[in-house]
């Protein structure tokens, strides 16, 4: 991994935060992520995250405050205010290290814990005024990127058609029909850690997309994986059953959950397909069979109008 000035400074900041009184330490540091939208480094029990360029301070602060005030659901930051890493124009936050889901054994994924945490999050009134959950905005950004990079790719057309069939709120072109339910906004298996490491309770991390909105969006990524034939039915059923058992409000307590899930699951299928095509174009490679299954689902959506529900069971 190339060491950028930002990565070097973030590494130093994490070390300084972990050991405020010593110059040397026996710890090894690790870069957990270094992407355009986030750089994350670990030093011993401390994690430093440089948020995406252009992240508004006024959005991040109430999201951090929410994490601080919901222990047992969200991992709390070490301090309530971000640090401005001025030369890099990046906001940096510090977190305790938690043990993530092992990417090599995703079959051991804590579906019940994830569902229960989401149900509790969705049932909790926002402790402070929050901006909208950013799920639709992220989907719209993936589609914008696809139109910029993948215009000539044959898979682009079905993805864009499926996107065009979605209601305006799901495309981030109108307010969401729910503006009060607390949502995570970007649920996937990388958003869960055990804290205290290594075997404390599971908690949700990453508040960048947290906000108020349509809670079924948080269930929609596993729902999309299941619908596309990727996630086995028993794992999907475990997730959905645990969410319902914990009183989650995003879907009715029994019966068919799909009227509530349909639109967000379509949107996340489109988002995933758009990212896959854009990436394949940039890397000059063919789509793999998993990516093709998402694009095939987009093609099937076009002939089936979205279900009438707004995506809220309330």
């Amino acid at each position, binding site marked *: 991994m190339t060491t950028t000035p930002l990565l070097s400074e973030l590494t130093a900041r994490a070390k300084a935060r972990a050991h405020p009184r010593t110059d040397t330490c026996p710890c090894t540091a690790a870069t957990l992520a270094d992407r355009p939208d986030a750089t994350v480094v670990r030093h011993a029990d401390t994690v430093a995250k440089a948020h995406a360029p252009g992240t508004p301070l006024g959005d991040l602060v109430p999201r951090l405050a929410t994490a601080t005030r919901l222990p047992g659901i969200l991992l709390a930051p070490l301090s309530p205010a971000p640090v401005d890493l001025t030369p890099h124009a990046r906001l940096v936050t510090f977190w305790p290290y938690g043990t993530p*889901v092992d*990417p090599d054994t*995703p*079959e051991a*994924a804590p579906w019940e814990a994830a569902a229960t945490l989401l149900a509790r999050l969705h049932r909790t009134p926002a402790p402070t005024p929050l901006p909208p959950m950013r799920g639709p905005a*992220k989907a719209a950004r993936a589609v914008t990127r696809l139109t910029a990079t993948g215009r000539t790719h044959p898979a682009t057309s079905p993805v864009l058609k499926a996107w065009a069939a979605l209601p305006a709120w799901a495309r981030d072109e109108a307010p969401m029909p729910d503006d009060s339910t607390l949502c995570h906004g*970007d649920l*996937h*298996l*990388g958003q869960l850690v055990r804290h205290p490491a290594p075997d404390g309770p599971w908690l949700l991390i990453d508040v960048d997309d947290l906000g108020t909105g349509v809670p079924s969006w948080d269930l929609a990524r596993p729902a999309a*994986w*299941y*619908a*596309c*034939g*990727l*996630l*086995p*039915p*028993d*794992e*999907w*059923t475990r997730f*959905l059953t645990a969410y319902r058992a914990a009183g989650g409000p995003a879907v009715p307590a029994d*019966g*068919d*959950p*799909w009227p509530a*899930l*349909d639109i967000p*699951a*379509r949107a996340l299928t489109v988002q*995933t397909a758009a*990212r896959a095509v854009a990436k394949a174009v940039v890397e000059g490679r063919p789509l*793999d*069979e*998993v*990516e093709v*299954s998402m694009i*095939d*689902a987009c*093609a*099937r*959506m076009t*002939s*089936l109008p979205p*279900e009438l529900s707004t995506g809220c069971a309330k």
Partner: protein
Amino acid sequence: MQCPKCHAPMHTYNRNGVQIEQCSGCRGIFLDYGELEALTRLESQWSQPAPPPPGAPQAYPAAPAPAWGAPHGGHGGHYGGHGGHHRHKSFGHMLFSS
């Protein structure tokens, strides 16, 4: 049979007991006479579930899926973790990605 639109071969899938021909090229779907009605009937049964039959309950009753989902009820069968098979590497990555 051949697709009337793009002339690619069509494959038969069984979706909830209804035979569906889907084109391997354009993904268009052909329904025989009465099949659309059969599907509609099945859909209405989903939204008004019958009381469970007496006897031992199933551990995992069949989970509903959207109509745009993967065909032939093969959820998870192709790439998933049934019976300890390894997941497709690409899906393993997808599970952890925004």
